[in-house]
C-alpha cells in the first residue's frame, strides 16, 4: 500500500489526477490494482456572510457564502446555519457518497448553487437521528474560504494498492522507490528527505565492539543515540503508519517502521543498556534458543543468522528481535542497526519459523547498501527531532558488500533492433534522464551506470531496452513478422506417433481422456505387469497424488467409474501419457478401455458387444496402421489384475510391447476390457515404406474345410501351419466357425476355415489347388494331431 500524500514529500504532484496517474503507472508495468481514496471533488471551505429566511419556507435559509473565488447563494435547511460560521460547501458537480450529484438550481423559487454539508452527508459519520439533529458541520480551523475541505476531513490522502511483479516488489514497496517510478513516468525529479542531525562528542565505537562471523552478513552498520524520550508519535507519522497498515506504538518504534516504509531498509533498535558493549553476528547453533519480543520461544537451526551480545542471541537477524534487548518505556539509550543479510537465508528462516514480518519480507527481497546508510541517518534525524535523542558521532561498520557498479554500454540501434522501434540518440537521452540513470555519451555509445536502488536491472542491453520500452509504451510497437525462411513445421520425434495413434483410436470410436500423472499408492499397486519400480514423491501434497504412475489403466478405470456413476453406458476410452520408472526412464504408453457395446442401434437389435475380440480388433487395427502387419503376436499369459483366462501379452518382433485382456472380476465385476501398449517401444522400431501390390487378374479359388482338434489347440497354430504348407498359392485363411458340443467328443472342438488360392500370373487349375489343399490337410493332421471333419 502506497500513500500518495506521503509520496508527495519526495516529488511534486501538484495538479496530477491521481486516478489517471494510476493508469499511467499500470501501463508502464507496475500494476496499480486499486486506487483507494475518500477524496471528494469540488468540496471547499465556505464562510456564511449573510443568512436570511427563505420567503416561501418556514425552515429554509438563503445564505450568501464566500467560497474564496466568489460569493455564491446557497439555500440551506439546517437549524444551525447562521452568519459568521465556516462550513463545508459541495459545489455543483460534486458527487457525494451515495452517488448524490450536486447541481445548481432553484429551491422553492430561490437560486441555490450548491449544498452546505453535514458530516453524515460526507460519509464521515453514520446517518443517525442524533447526527442528523447536529445539523451542518461548523468548521473550526485555520482553513480559509476556498480551501480544499478534504484536508479538514482527512480525505486528502490517496492510497494505491499495488500488485507488483516479483522483480519490482523491492523498490516499489517503499515510498521513495515508488516516487522514483512516478518521477520516471512524469519526467520529474525526486527530492530525498532531510537526514541531517547534530552529533555529540562521544563516539559509538567507544561503546560497542562489532564482530561479524558469518558470510551471510555482508553489511552491518550501527549508530547510537542517548536520552530518548518515549512518547506518542506526531500525527503525520501515526497517520502514515496506519495508512500502510501498521499500528503506531510509540515514537521510537514508529520511527524505525517509518524509515523502513520510506527507504525499504528495515532497522532494528536495541536497548543499549540491556545489550551491553558487544555485538557478534554469527550463524546460529542447532537448537539454540531465543525468546523473541512477541514472548515466544524460538528454536534455531545452524542455517539461521543471529545477532548476539557475544554470548547469547539477542535477535534473529532480519526476522525478529529478542525480548532481552527490546526497547521499552524506560529505554534511554538505543543502538540502531541497519544491515544487509543474505536474502535466501532470511526467507528460509522466516518460512521455517513461520515468522513473516514486514522486515523479513524486505530482507528476503534484497537491499541496496546506499539506502542502508541513508536509512540510519534518516532515523537519527527523526529521533533527534521527535524523541529528543542525542546522537553519538561515528558509525560501527562491517563492510564486505560488493560495490562494483553495474555498467552497460550500448548504442540506440542496439535498443532499436531489440524492440523493433526507431529511437534517436536524443530519445534515448530523454528516456535515461526520466529514469534518472547516470550515463556518459561517446559518439553513439551510451555507458550507463545503473542506480543501486534498481536491484532488478542487470547490466545488459535487454534490461535497458525493457526500461526504455515500458516508458516509451508498448502500444507504440508496430506488428512485424520475423524475417525468416518459410517452411511448414513438423511433429518431431515421438510426437508424431502419438498424434497418429490418437487420431486412429478416435477414428475407431474411442474417446480421449486426460488424467493425472500422480496417483495414489493404492492405484499404483495395480497393473504392475512390467515390474517397474515406481517413483514415490518424498514430500507429496496429498496421499492420493503421491506416486508417479507406470500404468495408465488404473486412471482409465477411474474415468470409467466416473461416467458409469452418471448413468453413461458403452464406455470406450483411451489415453496417451508418459510414464516414468524409478530410474526416470520414460515410457510413453497408450491405454485403452472398453465396456458395453461397441456398436449399437437398440430398436433393431444391431449390437456389437465389447469382448476380448473387439478390443483385440482395435489393437490389431492400430498396429497395422502403424506399420506392424505380420510382426505382432498375442500370447496368452497371466497378468496381474487381469482375468487369468482372458489375458495376453502383445509382442512385436517377439519383444513384449504391451498387454490385453479383461479386468479381473475381483477388481471390477463389470465386463471391462483393457489394453496398454508402449508407444516408446513401437517408435524405436523400423517400419518399411508402403509398397504397391497388384491384385490378381485371374479368378480366386475358395476351398472350405474343418479340423477336429484338442480344445487347447489355438486357431493361430492351425492357421500358421496352413500358411506354411500352403505356400505361394495360398493367399488368405479365414476362420468362419468354431464348434464345441454334442456332435463331437468332449475334449475336442471343430475349427472351420475358408482358404483362398490365387495366382497373379495365370488362371489356377483345379488340379493345382487340390494338390496344395491335400498337402495342407496332411500336414495339419500329422503335425498338429488334427483330423479333417467330414460333412456329417
Amino acid at each position, binding site marked *: 500500500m502506497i500513500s500518495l500524500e506521503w509520496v508527495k514529500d519526495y516529488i511534486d504532484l501538484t495538479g496530477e489526477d491521481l486516478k489517471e496517474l494510476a493508469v499511467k503507472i499500470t501501463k508502464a508495468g507496475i500494476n496499480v490494482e486499486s486506487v483507494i481514496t475518500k477524496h471528494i471533488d469540488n468540496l471547499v471551505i465556505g464562510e456564511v456572510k449573510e443568512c436570511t429566511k427563505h420567503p416561501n419556507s418556514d425552515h429554509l435559509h438563503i445564505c450568501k457564502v464566500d467560497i474564496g473565488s466568489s460569493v455564491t447563494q446557497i439555500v440551506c435547511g439546517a437549524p444551525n446555519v447562521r452568519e459568521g460560521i465556516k462550513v463545508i460547501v459541495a459545489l455543483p458537480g460534486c458527487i457525494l457518497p451515495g452517488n448524490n450529484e450536486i447541481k445548481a438550481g432553484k429551491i422553492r423559487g430561490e437560486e441555490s448553487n450548491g449544498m452546505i454539508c453535514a458530516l453524515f452527508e460526507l460519509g464521515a459519520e453514520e446517518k443517525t437521528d442524533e447526527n442528523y439533529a447536529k445539523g451542518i458541520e461548523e468548521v473550526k480551523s485555520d482553513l480559509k474560504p476556498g480551501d480544499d475541505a478534504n484536508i479538514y476531513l482527512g480525505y486528502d490522502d490517496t492510497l494505491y494498492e499495488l500488485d507488483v511483479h516479483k522483480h519490482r516488489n523491492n523498490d516499489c514497496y517503499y515510498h521513495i522507490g515508488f516516487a522514483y517510478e512516478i518521477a520516471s513516468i512524469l519526467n520529474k525529479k525526486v527530492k530525498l528527505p532531510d537526514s541531517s542531525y547534530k552529533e555529540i562528542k562521544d563516539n559509538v565505537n567507544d561503546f560497542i565492539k562489532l564482530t561479524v562471523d558469518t558470510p551471510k552478513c555482508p553489511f552491518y552498520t550501527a549508530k547510537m543515540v542517548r536520552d530518548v524520550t518515549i512518547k506518542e508519535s506526531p500525527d503525520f507519522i501515526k497517520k502514515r503508519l496506519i495508512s500502510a497498515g501498521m499500528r503506531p506504538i510509540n515514537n521510537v518504534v514508529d520511527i524505525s517502521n517509518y524509515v523502513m516504509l520510506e527507504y525499504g531498509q528495515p532497522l532494528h533498535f536495541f536497548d543499549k543498556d540491556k545489550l551491553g558493549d558487544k555485538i557478534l553476528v554469527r550463524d546460529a547453533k542447532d537448537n539454540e534458543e531465543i525468546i523473541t519480543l512477541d514472548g515466544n520461544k524460538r528454536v534455531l537451526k545452524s542455517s539461521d543468522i543471529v545477532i548476539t551480545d557475544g554470548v547469547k542471541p539477542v535477535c534473529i537477524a532480519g526476522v525478529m528481535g529478542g525480548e532481552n534487548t527490546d526497547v521499552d518505556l524506560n529505554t534511554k539509550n538505543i543502538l540502531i542497526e541497519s544491515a544487509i543479510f543474505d536474502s535466501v537465508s532470511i526467507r528460509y528462516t522466516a518460512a521455517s519459523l513461520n515468522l513473516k514480518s514486514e522486515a523479513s519480507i524486505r530482507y528476503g527481497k534484497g537491499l541496496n547498501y546506499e539506502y542502508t546508510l541513508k536509512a540510519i541517518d534518516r532515523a537519527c534525524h527523526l529521533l533527534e527531532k521527535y524523541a529528543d535523542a542525542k546522537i553519538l558521532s561515528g558509525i560501527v561498520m562491517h563492510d564486505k558488500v560488493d560495490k562494483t557498479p553495474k555498467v552497460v554500454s550500448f548504442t540506440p540501434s542496439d535498443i532499436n533492433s531489440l524492440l523493433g522501434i526507431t529511437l534517436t540518440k536524443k530519445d534515448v537521452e530523454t528516456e535515461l534522464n526520466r529514469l534518472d540513470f547516470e550515463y556518459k555519451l561517446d559518439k553513439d555509445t551510451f555507458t550507463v551506470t545503473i542506480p543501486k536502488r534498481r536491484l532488478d536491472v542487470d547490466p545488459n542491453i535487454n534490461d535497458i531496452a525493457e526500461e526504455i520500452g515500458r516508458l516509451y509504451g508498448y502500444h507504440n510497437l508496430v506488428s*512485424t513478422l520475423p524475417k525468416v525462411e518459410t517452411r511448414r513445421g513438423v511433429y518431431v520425434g515421438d510426437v508424431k506417433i502419438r498424434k497418429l495413434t490418437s487420431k486412429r*483410436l478416435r477414428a475407431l470410436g474411442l474417446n480421449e481422456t486426460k488424467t493425472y500423472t500422480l496417483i495414489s499408492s493404492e492405484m499404483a499397486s495395480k497393473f504392475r505387469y512390467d515390474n517397474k519400480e515406481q517413483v514415490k514423491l518424498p514430500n507429496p501434497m496429498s496421499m492420493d497424488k503421491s506416486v508417479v504412475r507406470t500404468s495408465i489403466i488404473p486412471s482409465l478405470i477411474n474415468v470409467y467409474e466416473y461416467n458409469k456413476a452418471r448413468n453413461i453406458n458403452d464406455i470406450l476410452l483411451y489415453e496417451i501419457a508418459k510414464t516414468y520408472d524409478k530410474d526416470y526412464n520414460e515410457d510413453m504408453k497408450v491405454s485403452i478401455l472398453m465396456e458395453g457395446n461397441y456398436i449399437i442401434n437398440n430398436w433393431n437389435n444391431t449390437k456389437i458387444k465389447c469382448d476380448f475380440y473387439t478390443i483385440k480388433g482395435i489393437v490389431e487395427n492400430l498396429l497395422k496402421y502403424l506399420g506392424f502387419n505380420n510382426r505382432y503376436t498375442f500370447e496368452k499369459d497371466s497378468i496381474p489384475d487381469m482375468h487369468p483366462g482372458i489375458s495376453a501379452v502383445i509382442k512385436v518382433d517377439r519383444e513384449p510391447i504391451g498387454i490385453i485382456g479383461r479386468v479381473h472380476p475381483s477388481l471390477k465385476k463389470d465386463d471391462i476390457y483393457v489394453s496398454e501398449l508402449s508407444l516408446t517401444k513401437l517408435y524405436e522400431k523400423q517400419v518399411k515404406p508402403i509398397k504397391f501390390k497388384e491384385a490378381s487378374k485371374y479368378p480366386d479359388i475358395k476351398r472350405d474345410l474343418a479340423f477336429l482338434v484338442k480344445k487347447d489347440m489355438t486357431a493361430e497354430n492351425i492357421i500358421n501351419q496352413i500358411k506354411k504348407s500352403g505356400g505361394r498359392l495360398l493367399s488368405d485363411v479365414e476362420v468362419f466357425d468354431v464348434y464345441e458340443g454334442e456332435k463331437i467328443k468332449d475334449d475336442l472342438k471343430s475349427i472351420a476355415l475358408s482358404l483362398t488360392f490365387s495366382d497373379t500370373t495365370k488362371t489356377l487349375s483345379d488340379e493345382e489347388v487340390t494338390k496344395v489343399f491335400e498337402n495342407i490337410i496332411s500336414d495339419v493332421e500329422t503335425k498338429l494331431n488334427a483330423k479333417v471333419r467330414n460333412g456329417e
Partner: protein
Amino acid sequence: MKEKIDLLCSEIESKINSVSTKKELNDLKVEYLGKKGIITELQSGIKDAVDKKEYGSEVNRARTTFNDNYDKKNAEIELEELNKKLESENIDISLPALDIPVGSPNILENIIEEVEEVFMSMGYDVVDGPEIEEDKYNFELLNIPKGHPARDAQDTFYIEDENILLRSQTSPVQAREMLKAGGDKPIRMICPGKTYRRDADDATHSHQFMQIEGLLVDKNISLSDLKGTFDVIAKKLFGENCETRFRPSYYQFTEPSVETDISCFVCKGKGCSLCKNTGWITVSGAGMVHPNVLKNCGYDPKVWSGFALGFGAERLAMLKYGINDIRTFYQTDLRESKAFDRRDV
C-alpha cells in the same frame, strides 16, 4: 393363308391383352405354343402345304406376334407385381440411425492441436521433453539460480533433493532444444506439455496443467516481431476482429517481458464480467529471450536474439469454450466431450 394368320394374330393380341396374371399368360402360351398348341399344330401342317416357304413364313409371323406380345405383357405384369411388393416395404425413416462409433478428443488436446496448427503454419516444429526433469533445465539454465525467489512462487514437486523434479513449466524443453541445436542454427519450436506445481485442486487451480510454449531464435529478432506473431495467433484462435496489446511484465527468462492481452470477444471491449470490465483478457506471457538464457544454452546474445511466448492450455480452452471449472479437463465426462468431435469454426 395370309388372311387366316392375320385373324390368328389379332386373336392372339386381344387374348394376351385381356389377361392380368402370370398364370393366365402362361396358359395362353400352352394354348398356342404347347405340344398341342394352335401354332405348334399349324407348324406341323407344313408338310401338306403347297407353297412351303410362304406357309412357313406365315406361321413364323404368328409365332413372332405371340412372343412379342407375350414379352410385353410379361414385363407389364412383373412391373406391377414389383410395385405392389415395394409398396408393402415402406419404412419409418424417422427411426434412430446407427450410432457410428467415432471418439472425441480431450478438450485440452483439441485446443492444443489448434494452436499447433497455427504455429506449424508459421514454421514452428512441435517437440516435447521429459516431465521428470533436472533442476538444471527447469531452473538454472533459465536464469533462475538456486535461492531465487521465483522458485518459491513455482511451488515445485521435488523428487530427489533439489535436483530432480516434476517440471514446473515447459520452458526446460526450450533449453534442451537450444543446447541440441548447438548455438549456430535458428530455432522455431513449440512444446505443448504437462507441467506440475503444488497447488490444491479446485475450480481454478490444478496441480497438473498444460502449457504451450513457443520459441524463436534467429538473427535480428525484435519485440515487434513478437507482437506481429502474437497478432497472427490471436486472430486465428479468437477471430479476425481480435485486437491485441502488450503490457510490461516480468519473467526470469525473458527481458523485456510482456503480458499479452486480446480484446474481449464477449463484450467487444465494452467491459463485461469475463474481462472484469477492462475490455481486455490476458492470454499469455512472453518476451525477448534473456541474454543469460541464450548464453547458458550456447547462443551468443551479440549475434542471436529471439522471443518466447507461453499459453496456459486450460486458460485458452476455458476462455474459448466457456468452461468454468479446470477439473473439467481431467474428468472426461463423455456427455461433455462428445461436443468436441466436430470441426470448429
